């Protein structure tokens, strides 16, 4: 199979910018890259979920168009998606044979045959699952196996495995790899997508590295290939070092504590978080998607409750019931879903800025002081250089960067001591990014304490004084600015290596 110059554009994002890709029979090619690098988009194009804007696809030398999933199936492409694609209320057989049903005489389903076939596939995968069970009654691992069985059913020539190992423990992964190797030896071409570099090096015949919608290199695993080499290729050499402004404040003894967490836990999200935040610092939180950071932040503001441990704000033990409680205690959160949670898109700029501070913008009649509101909104629009024609502009008409600044302005106006920022620069262009960084650092210099979470490690390296690495809801490491590990490669290493431990724990 061969793909040539594939382009794909989504509203607002260019997901693939001219990707070439080839896969030979009996080979395993892995795709690696940071989130949003284009791996899943490429696999979805091969599976017929998306069609490319530009480019050509050849399978066994013939040019093909893969218009829908059914067409991909007929061309011999099987895929296990990253997201669950099982119907919970249907049985295992029904799911495996969804849209591939076997019938007698074309109308009546051949239930017996389908049952045998699915048992055969599962047996081949080395699992015994009651195929008459409903999928919702299965364990996480069993579900993943069914997903794979579903893709394997038609004996595809090309099999795409998108993050299949996430819920599996080490033994199960080994078992799966054995099967994959068998398939490979039978001549199947396999595309493997994953985050666990160790696994990838172990299984792949070659590794394609993606960055920003392009493939930037191909590595051939060998004894000498280290995870570090892969990571540095994933990140590229163009590290943006121009804005290193953090400082090391190790001297914790004399500093004023503003927030202290003692063994904070929330079942299913995070566990035993011990952490102290001091006045005038920025602490970064690094981890993979689903590591529990967002939920931790939400708990700190009172959006989510926690069910174990204690939380102290300026030495006082607190437990918030509503977000309002968090705000009153001086904690504000800039969410990672600014359109969904952070902004009222159909309101104008000034109302969005003022929405959390309405109680402080009252006049002596206890009604809203609209002049004060306008003045304040104007002040922040200017201070944060928010580009808007006027403070009466509807927020939905502004660019992502400017919307993000408004969310931040909302909390600045409230003059809170602790600001939690979840993905401060998501979907924001480079220039606006720098402005937002400056803004956050400025707040720190004004004596505020900030907690910043971001999937972009570079971002954290730029502005944070120290970085906590969270995995499966636990703090696994803390890296100070003056430590030698305060480097992207090292932090990514910690994240990726500790990932394995997490899934093992989870599967039990």
């Amino acid at each position, binding site marked *: 199979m061969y793909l040539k110059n594939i382009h794909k554009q989504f509203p607002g994002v260019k997901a693939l910018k001219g990707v070439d890709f080839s896969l030979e029979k009996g080979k395993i090619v892995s795709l690696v890259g940071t989130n949003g690098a284009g791996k899943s988009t490429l696999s979805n194009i091969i599976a*017929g979920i998306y069609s490319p804007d530009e480019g050509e696809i050849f399978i066994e030398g013939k040019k093909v168009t893969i218009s829908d*999933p059914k067409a991909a199936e007929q061309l011999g492409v099987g895929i296990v998606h990253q997201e669950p694609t099982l*119907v*919970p209320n249907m049985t295992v057989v*029904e799911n495996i*044979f969804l*849209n591939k049903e076997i*019938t007698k005489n074309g109308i*009546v389903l051949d239930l017996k045959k389908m049952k045998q076939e699915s048992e055969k596939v599962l047996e081949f995968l080395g699992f015994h699952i009651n195929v008459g069970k409903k999928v919702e009654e299965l364990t996480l691992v069993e579900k993943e196996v069914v997903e794979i069985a579903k893709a394997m059913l038609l004996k595809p020539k090309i099999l795409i495995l998108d993050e299949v190992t996430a819920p599996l423990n080490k033994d199960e992964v080994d078992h799966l790899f054995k099967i994959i190797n068998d398939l490979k030896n039978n001549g199947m071409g396999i595309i493997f997508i994953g985050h666990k570099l160790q696994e990838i090096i172990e299984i792949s015949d070659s590794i394609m590295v993606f960055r920003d919608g392009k493939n930037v290199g191909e590595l051939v695993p060998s004894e000498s290939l280290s995870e570090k080499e892969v990571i540095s290729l994933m990140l590229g050499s163009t590290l943006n070092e121009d804005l290193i402004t953090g400082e090391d404040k190790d001297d914790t003894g004399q500093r004023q504590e503003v927030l202290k967490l003692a063994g904070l836990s929330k079942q299913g999200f995070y566990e035993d978080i011990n952490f102290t935040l001091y006045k005038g610092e920025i602490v970064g939180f690094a981890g993979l998607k689903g590591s529990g950071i967002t939920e931790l932040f939400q708990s700190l503001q009172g959006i989510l409750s926690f069910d174990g441990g204690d939380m102290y704000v300026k030495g006082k033990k607190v437990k918030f019931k509503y977000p309002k409680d968090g705000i009153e205690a001086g904690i504000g959160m800039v969410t990672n879903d600014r359109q969904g949670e952070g902004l009222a898109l159909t309101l104008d700029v000034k109302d969005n800025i003022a929405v959390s501070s309405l109680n402080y913008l009252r006049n002596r009649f206890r009604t809203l002081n609209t002049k004060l509101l306008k003045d304040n909104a104007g002040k922040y629009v200017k201070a944060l250089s928010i580009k808007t024609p006027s403070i009466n502009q509807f927020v939905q008409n502004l660019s992502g960067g400017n919307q993000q600044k408004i969310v931040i302005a909302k909390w600045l106006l409230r003059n809170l001591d602790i600001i939690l920022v979840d993905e401060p620069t998501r979907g924001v262009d480079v220039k606006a990014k720098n402005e937002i960084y400056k803004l956050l650092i400025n707040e720190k210099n004004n004596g505020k304490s900030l907690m910043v979470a971001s999937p972009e490690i570079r971002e954290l390296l730029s502005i944070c004084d120290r970085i906590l690495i969270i995995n499966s809801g636990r703090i696994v490491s803390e890296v100070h600015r003056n430590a030698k590990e305060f480097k992207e490669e090292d932090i990514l290493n910690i994240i990726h290596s500790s990932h394995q431990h997490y899934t093992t724990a989870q599967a039990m």
Partner: protein
Amino acid sequence: MASDTSSINGGYRVSAKLIKDNMLIIILLLELIIGVILSPVFLGKTNIQSILINTAIFGLLAVGQSLVMLVKEIDLSVGAMMAFGPIAAIALTEKILSGSGTEIIVGGNYVVDGLLLIVILVLLISALIGILNGIIRVKAQVPSLIVTLGMMYVLSGMSYILSGGYSLYLTNLEGAKSLGNNMIAGIPVNFILFLVIGVLVILVLKYTKVGHRIYSTGGNEKAAIYSGINTNFWKIMAFGISGVCAGAAALIYSSRLQSVETIQGSGYELISIAIAVIGGITLEGGRGNIFGAIIASAILCIMLNILSLVGLIAWYKTIIIGLIIIGAASQHAFSRRTA
């Protein structure tokens, strides 16, 4: 986890599960027992026949509604369709046959001819409106709650315009009363028709691809799309079938009362949803089965019958229905969580 506890008190578990899985049947049996105790005429022939006719009308609507709910949609237009279908069909028949000189409506509002054409048109028009509901739903991406709510108003308005608000009498239309009143071996023909349709739907859902399409469309639309299923098509189909069911229910209704009224069937959309919910179909789609809906329609009709036999005032009736709906929905949700 689950296997540990079940081995400890397995016997209790099994019987509890048996009750849970057959809750609807148990309720039905209990109702029958209560009915026999409370009223000596409950098991009388005419009373049972009356229950069966009502079950046929509500059951047909509920079967259609259930299909729509299985694909995670809802159809509020079925009640209005029950009036519009016959009214439009009669108007259209009059127009079609007026060319051949056959008079369809005499004396202002007595329908006297064209029964076969009317019956076909009722089913056809209802199916088309259902399909239209579906097309608007999937193409314009308007939630079905809104589409069918709008359709409900459009249809009842059009029913008024077409009929001028007058009722139509079918008393002088030969054969018109047979569907609503004839019996085969003491069983109403319409109930037999309903059973045939119901069993057909159950079999099709269970033993053909259609069932997989419908359940996956409602259960996890993305998964269905990834498997190459045209979920939009199946949604439109579900609305179409719901339309046909409403048309069939309208035929039974009009035949039983030998008339067509602009207000007939109003409010029945909610009853059909209530029955589907009692039968275990959820608003989240892809869950529940048609058998449950059929049993639930019998449960509701028997309960209404018992309440009217013992002479309970309507206020209490509505409270009881409401409690049953809430109770059934929570019971289904509960048994799912603890499954």
